[in-house]
């Protein structure tokens, strides 16, 4: 089980960031978001090789165009 922005989701072996997005309903493969797993920022350049540990607390912050 993992908790993403206070919502619980099932966890599975070798769950990666892309699996997480799919679970959350994102349609883009690499959306503009900030991801923190157990309070550590996972940079976009690390997404390909990163596996989410079970029982992780994850924060996903959407970043919208405009400034």
């Amino acid at each position, binding site marked *: 089980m993992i908790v993403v922005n206070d919502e619980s989701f099932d966890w599975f072996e070798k769950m990666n960031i892309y699996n997480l997005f799919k679970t959350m309903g994102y349609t883009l493969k690499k959306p503009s978001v900030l991801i923190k797993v157990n309070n550590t920022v996972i940079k976009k350049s690390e997404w390909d090789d990163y596996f989410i540990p079970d029982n992780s607390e994850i924060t996903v912050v959407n970043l919208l165009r*405009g*400034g």
Partner: protein
Amino acid sequence: MTTSRSFSNTEISETHNILHTPEIASKLKKLTIGIAGLGGLGSNAAVALARAGIGKLILVDFDRVELSNLNRQAYFLEHIGMYKTHAIVDIISRINPFIDLIPVRTTITEKNCMAIFESTDLVIEAVDEAETKEMIIETILTESEIMPIIAGSGMAGYGKNSILTETKLGRLRLLGDDISEVSPGVPLMAPRVGIVANMQANAALEILLGEWK
């Protein structure tokens, strides 16, 4: 009526001492804030921080002022065609010529981001593109262990004051409504962009001075 009288650093500092208290004025004068992007968020946040009496601003942008910027950015018609770094220096110098202003005319990348902002006490993220926002936030949070960053996300359109909020995520503060992305029919407009810019400047003061009691 205009005045041609020039004012001394002492006169401006003493006015800040009276208006803001000597303790706050003195603290602000010693601080450096970096502003990444000088569009609607960055130009307005820079002006607010200059009026507050920040000692030093590092002002970063690659672009020139265009007519289409004037619906929300701090510039004037006379600035069209100028680099935003130079235009904002012109504006701030007319508010307070004794602020240490460092214009950096460049595109912010993962490689140069920390070098640009390494001497700052705090960074305000104020760029337009979502991917660049992400890169700047990721870089500051992973390559510095202490530097706070204040970002803006969700400020397009008008109205809906009540949904503009502040989210605190460790060293990151996120200002905006988290839903209003600029898109066809949902433009960036001065009031809402200005509110978020001033929220960013306000959050910067709170982080650097401590919570107001």
